[in-house]
């Protein structure tokens, strides 16, 4: 009863925040006009129509995909490693992506190659980021096949992060201030400015990841009891591990490529959701986490836009500044962590 109430509440919040995100921005557009534009009727003010249909709508869809999928990645990783500190980037995916981006953005000064004006800079960054994540994913999968212990993977992920961040530091050391600024802006994350074709690609990756997660619900529940218990239930641990890693890499890799490394959401949302729905059953957790994550990122994006002011904030600043105190307050209030 409590659970169904919570899911209903989450769904209502999601719809409200979706409409809020579409109606709030630097430019004030009356709500009736927003609804008109969303139903593809033509508005008198052509700029408003363009802003809603070609800027706010793609940004809102991106927020939903990124928020939902990253939170799900966090849940998968926390369950796989049975570690409340695990997040979507624990395997070193964002580090791989960062290295890819650093090589093309910062590489021109230190390595003598870099961005060329002929190919769109955005696509180069997307490709570099995907390639970086993909190579890390292949290394992780190859390692996962050989390892018996899941915890060792966690250490290997951390080692990957250390290696890549060291290389990024060296590249930064030899870069010009403009290049550094570009790289830092990328690392702050951005939900806006994705074209519909990019959103299509992102949706496919996130959709596949969510589908895999749904298939994995039973083994994930078994994993909560520990690997030995799961094996006694007839769960193939190695196969489950590979599928969980594949789902996470697909989602987190695509998100990092298109939106940059979005902080905090993936780590915190699974905890917040568990506190809300009061269960650790993945049948409830998987859809709830996706809904919660999408709603939270929609809220963060609405705040980051600083409605009715011309200025706006980078999304990562908002996710952590707003999110972290909320999690701290919640955990202190609840007195224990449900995990």
């Amino acid at each position, binding site marked *: 009863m409590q659970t169904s109430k919570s899911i209903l509440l989450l769904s209502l919040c999601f719809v409200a925040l979706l409409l809020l995100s579409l109606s709030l921005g630097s430019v004030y557009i009356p709500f009736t006009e927003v609804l008109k534009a969303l139903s593809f009727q033509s508005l008198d003010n052509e700029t408003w129509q363009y*802003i809603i249909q070609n800027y706010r709508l793609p940004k809102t869809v991106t927020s939903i995909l990124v928020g939902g999928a990253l939170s799900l990645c966090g849940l998968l990783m926390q369950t796989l490693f049975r570690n409340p500190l695990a997040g979507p980037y624990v395997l070193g995916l964002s580090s791989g992506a960062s290295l890819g981006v650093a090589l093309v953005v910062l590489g021109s000064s230190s390595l003598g190659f870099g961005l060329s004006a002929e190919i769109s800079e955005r696509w180069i960054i997307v490709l570099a980021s995907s390639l970086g994540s993909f190579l890390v994913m292949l290394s992780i999968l190859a390692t996962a096949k050989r390892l018996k212990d899941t915890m060792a993977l966690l250490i290997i992920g951390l080692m990957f992060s250390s290696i890549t961040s060291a290389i990024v530091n060296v590249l930064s050391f030899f870069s010009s201030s403009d290049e550094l600024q570009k790289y830092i802006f990328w690392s702050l994350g*951005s939900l806006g400015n994705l074209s519909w074709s990019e959103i299509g690609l992102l949706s496919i990756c996130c959709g596949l990841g969510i589908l895999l997660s749904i298939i994995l619900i039973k083994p994930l529940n078994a994993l909560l009891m520990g690997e030995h218990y799961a094996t006694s239930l007839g769960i193939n641990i190695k196969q489950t591990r590979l599928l969980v890693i594949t789902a996470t890499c697909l989602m987190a890799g695509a998100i990092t490529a298109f939106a940059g490394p979005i902080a905090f959401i993936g780590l915190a949302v699974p905890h917040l959701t568990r506190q809300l729905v009061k269960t650790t059953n993945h049948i409830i957790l998987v859809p709830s986490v996706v809904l919660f994550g999408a709603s939270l990122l929609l809220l963060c994006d609405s705040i980051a836009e*600083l409605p009715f002011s*011309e200025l706006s904030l980078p999304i990562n600043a908002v996710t952590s500044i707003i999110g972290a105190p909320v999690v701290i307050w919640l955990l202190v209030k609840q007195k224990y962590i449900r995990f």
Partner: protein
Amino acid sequence: MKYFFYILCIALVLGCQNSSKETTKIEAKQLGYSVKHAKGFSIEVYKDFAIIEVEKPWPNSNKNYRYLVQYTSTHDQVKGNFDAIISAPISSYILSSTTHIPSAESLGILDNLVGFPNTDFISSKEARKRINKDYITDIGQNQQLNTELVLNLKPDVFVGFSVDGANKAYSVFEKAGIPIIYNGDWVESTPLGKAEWIKFFGALFNKNKLAQQKFEAIEDAYYKTKQLETSAKKKPKVISGSLYNDKWYLPNGTSWQAQFIKDAHADYIYKDTSGSGSLALAFESVLNKASEADIWISPGSYTSYEAMLNDQPHYKKFKAFSTKTVYSVAQQKGETGGVLFYELAPNRPDLVLKDLVKIFHPELLPNYNLHFFSPLQ
């Protein structure tokens, strides 16, 4: 009382001894060189020496830096505390910003330049010749200077700059006896104020008269171009900057760039904004406010319409983009990729203004060819 009398006698004797010592006379009558537009420095020029006072080497600095430049060798110290004392003539020196290069070139002192951080950024043909012949050593990057190379060059003076006064390498150089002189041309917010820093180099290298003449020529050309606006028929609306991720970066209304647009008799859409550094605005507000701008200048590093569209399809919603009235400085580059505008524009505001008048009001300068800007391909 008796003791007091003896002490007085001894003091008088000692005093007479001191005053009878021969002194070298220092010319203490100021020559008529002064600073009119720049807010960041002042100069007092005498026949035998000059005092340069840098009041704003970086934003919010709370210390004035005073430098003494001695033009003649004299054993007498000019009274006062100085952050560095330099003896002219200077036979070797290091500069730290490309904006210093044009002053050195027009004062004819490039031959003594021995070091520069990241020489690839330099566009000046004269300077490039000397770099290619290895007369100018690359001393690393501004924030990571190669200390050993600088110590080895042991210049008579290092003309540095700082964004916040914290530069560890500089204190090492000072300990090694290399005088550091801060140049704050980049903090200056007016076109003529930036250009007037040529007088800083004039005072430093005892080329005051030449610096004055060069600056007056630039000032005169600037005012003459500005006068043209009286016959301008229209006042086009102007937008600047470009999108990065989903933020639009553009100069604020009190910036150097905005001043140029105003002086070229155009209406910069963000003229009423203020602040330090560039503005980072939400895309939708810029689209709402500036989509009808007639002319778009300096759209980041883009050099073609195709590149802009590949990067951001939103650009097509701007009138200036569809009417092909976008002008950029990114196409005029030096031999090794440094953008000419960043190096020469602060020194030659007259050329920047002429460029903008030509872009905004082509009928006023029919025979003028653009120097920094060019239409996008």
